[in-house]
């Protein structure tokens, strides 16, 4: 096999990555001061979900991938620590697209988390910023890493406009919390529960009103500050937070399942030229062509197949149908922070229901990266961040393990609350 480096394969991707890094908040994330140079050798490396290199080598320097290629052609710096990954599989670190990692510590404890909003006194919480309360020492984060998840979009839920999510690195908490992107998106929801009165139409109306009033606020901020404005639908900070949504800079993630809500969201996004992302999307397959035409991605859980009253048209092959129609599909656990480690299994389930394997891997790596605005992430291209996982085998298969996780080029501790419990109780304690 001839020597292939990713710069050869994807020179444009590499340049895009560099550009993206310069233009986004990612540049704020400094690589660890003394990240060692590593060379992973002998592995099957997925430089992108649809392109693998056999017996390949990947070199990490200063937190970045500095070389990747098949065979013996990659020059390994003399200073590099070599990691023999013969027979192993290397992929980009998985990205969880919609969760509450770092926000919710214990789901059922009232004091056990943040970013869980209701509808009273208001369903609008747009000003909430996940980074304000994100806990990088959450007990659930190291557990998520054992599932090969290296970063996550953590955000609030509940109400109509739940607030701003942040794309957080899940690097070892010895270092301060490191946002990849903050904010990552504005979270919203449609459906009978969004505003608490059971009306789905009223929820859409309120969302439209909030966006209208944000525009009004922006146009007449002086009048607003002089108290010469009519009453607006949201508080000042909420309106302020909606401005990047209006300008299309910040994606609006709308959680909705019913076809009618999905169509309403799509119409609103067209009308206001919003950067819409659908989350949930149980009936999204029914408007796959429209979503594809409007370039609206869908974040879904492929196991969510129980019919609901307003969303009864559920199918196991939702992900496969959407992908086939050309929709960008991201896969997410969409649930408890403690269950993020099961992300790869969900990708595997989607494959069992017809999604192509490379699309499933993309759904937990390159697609989340792209839809949240950093297309150089979620790939293993030269110049990109060294967020990667060395797997014992097929990353989506149940018997495989994440053996080594690098975030920003730094090998992560695989110790968790759970591994410590296992150590304590590996032998039955004496009575």
């Amino acid at each position, binding site marked *: 096999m001839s020597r292939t480096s990713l710069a050869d394969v994807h020179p444009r991707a590499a340049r895009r990555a560099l550009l993206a890094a310069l233009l986004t908040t990612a540049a704020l994330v400094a690589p660890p001061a003394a990240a060692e140079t590593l060379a992973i050798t002998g592995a099957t490396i997925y430089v992108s979900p649809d392109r693998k290199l056999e017996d390949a080598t990947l070199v990490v320097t200063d937190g970045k991938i500095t070389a990747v290629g098949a065979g013996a052609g990659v020059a390994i710096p003399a200073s590099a620590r070599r990691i023999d990954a013969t027979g192993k599989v290397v992929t980009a670190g998985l990205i969880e697209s919609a969760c509450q990692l770092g926000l919710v510590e*214990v*789901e*059922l*404890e009232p004091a*056990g988390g943040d970013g869980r909003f209701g509808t009273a006194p208001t369903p609008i919480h747009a000003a909430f910023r996940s980074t304000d309360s994100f806990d990088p020492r959450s*007990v*659930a984060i190291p*557990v998520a890493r054992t599932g090969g998840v290296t970063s996550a979009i953590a955000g609030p839920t509940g109400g109509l406009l739940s607030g701003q999510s942040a794309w957080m690195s899940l690097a070892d908490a010895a270092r301060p919390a490191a946002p990849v992107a903050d904010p990552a998106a504005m979270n919203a929801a449609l459906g009978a529960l969004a505003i608490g009165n059971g009306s789905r139409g009223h929820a859409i109306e309120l969302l439209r009103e909030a966006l209208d009033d944000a525009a009004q606020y922006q146009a007449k901020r002086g009048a607003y500050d002089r108290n010469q404005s009519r009453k607006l639908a949201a508080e000042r900070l909420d309106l302020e937070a909606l401005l990047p949504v209006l300008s299309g800079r910040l994606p609006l993630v709308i959680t909705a399942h019913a076809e009618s809500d999905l169509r309403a969201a799509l119409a609103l996004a067209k009308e206001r030229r919003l950067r819409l992302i659908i989350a949930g999307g149980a009936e999204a*397959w*029914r*408007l*796959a*062509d*429209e979503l*594809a035409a409007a370039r609206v991605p869908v974040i879904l859980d492929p*196991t*969510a*197949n*129980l*019919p*609901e*009253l307003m969303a*009864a*048209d*559920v*199918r196991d092959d939702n992900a496969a*149908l959407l992908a*086939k*129609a*050309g929709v960008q599909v991201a896969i997410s656990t969409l649930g*408890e*922070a*403690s*269950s993020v*480690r*099961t992300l790869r*299994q969900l990708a*595997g*389930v989607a*494959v*069992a229901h017809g999604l192509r394997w490379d699309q499933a891997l993309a759904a937990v790596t390159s697609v989340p990266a792209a839809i949240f605005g950093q297309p150089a992430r979620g790939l293993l291209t030269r110049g990109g961040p060294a967020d990667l996982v060395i797997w014992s085998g097929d990353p*989506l*298969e*149940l*018997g*495989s*393990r994440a053996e080594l996780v690098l975030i920003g080029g730094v090998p992560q501790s695989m110790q968790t*609350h*759970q591994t410590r*419990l*296992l150590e304590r*109780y*590996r032998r*039955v*304690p004496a*009575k």
Partner: protein
Amino acid sequence: MRTWPAWPLWSLWPLLLLTACGGASKGASRPEGAAVDVVDPWVDPSDDLVTGVPRHRGAPADALVNAQARPIAIVGATVLTGAGQRIERGTVVLSGGAIRYVGQASAAPVPKDALILDGTGKFVTPGIIDAHSHLGVQAAPAGRGHNDGNEATAPITAQARAQYGYQGQDPQISRAMAGGVTAALILPGSANLIGGHGFTVAMKPARVTDEAAFPGAPPTLKMACGENPKRVYGEKGGPSTRMGSYATFRAAFLDANAYNAKWTRYRRTQKLWLDKKHRAEKLDAEARKRGAAPVKTENAPEPPAVDLKLETLAAVLRGEVLVQVHCYRAYDMGEMMAVASELGFTIRSFHHALDAYKIRDLLVARGIAINTWADWWGFKLEAFDGIPENAALFTEQGGRATIHSDSAIGIQRLNQEAAKARASGIAAGIAITEDQALRWITANPAWVLGIDEVTGTLEAGKRADVVLWSGSPFSVYSNAEKTIVAGEIVYDRQQGLPPSDFELGNSAFERNTLPGSLR
């Protein structure tokens, strides 16, 4: 094989009579001198007790017969028996509702009229059994009208039964069938300390609950400790703490004990009365012969009132019910074991049991099984110490573990959950075999439900509860292709999910109009 007594409807007749006749046996109005009056319904003391066990349970052998089942032979598949064997290119023959043959193709007695299923490259396993499900009692679509899982009106509702609320047309049933599930224990929820009777079902759609009942399955009772009852009753007058919860458990079983004693005393009194009555009848006959005055008898003793709640708990104390206890914490399980040994009953298994690995010696010494998850943890404080090696450690200790679902989503992939729990065990140096992992979702839950004599493994003579998988059941990419319950194919992947009544004209099945580009 233990035979569970059938309790037909007529065993309830003393109860009906009691309500119909009011104080008939109180005696004040009994005509004098008529010896025949004392021959009342209470002749045979063993008929007296209304035991409150479910109707139509049948005998275990009933599970092995199904006249609807035509012969089926699955040929060429890798057969995992759940009884220690892996047979490459094996043959499995089913007929009349039972397994007739499991083994090499050469010796297989394939009936001429058998439906032949080509299993080349595929796997065959026993049907999957879920020891913890709320299907049917919390039916889809979720909503107030379908919320039948928790009789959350009092902490002890031992008289309630999951069977009463089981909706056999729950759309979740077909989805469980598509996951290779052939039987499950449907339990009341965990709002109550004692939620009520479980309902062991065969996984197939039903019109009335009796059609879903697993034939001959023994009675079960759902109990719960820890956070859930605290949370629910903390706002409803208590108990609001574990202290109050365990005191309430003890009080309930002490009541049942007193109830048992009342009935025992009644039976003894009744027996004495019967003896007296026979003597009186004899004396009366002699007196009549002599033309002397008739000999009168005393009135029959009055039976205590039947209380279905205490009846259930009394049956637990008599060892007639398989007790299933929802517990997460080691200290909760320890306290439940103390309650059981103080009051004199046996716990069949703990459910969820996330801390079981910490006290696996104590549990295994008592023969208590656990039903747990592969990796669900952390969603509440009592679930904070769950570890993925729980089932493996418990198995290594010699205990019976199952992987259960407690979820209409999880029940669709118990095979995958078992695969994950096995992988976690192996990574920790616990050499869980393929057979052991399979038993977590087949033979072991069959034992928890008390139906292991008839199902849970692929062996000749057992019920034809069988799954044909597209590949290894431990692979994320495999699907159940055929699910066979009592010899009948209830799910066929080629034909897709059979729509429930709810889904007719109201679902993706029927509005299957794919978007233009996908047609």
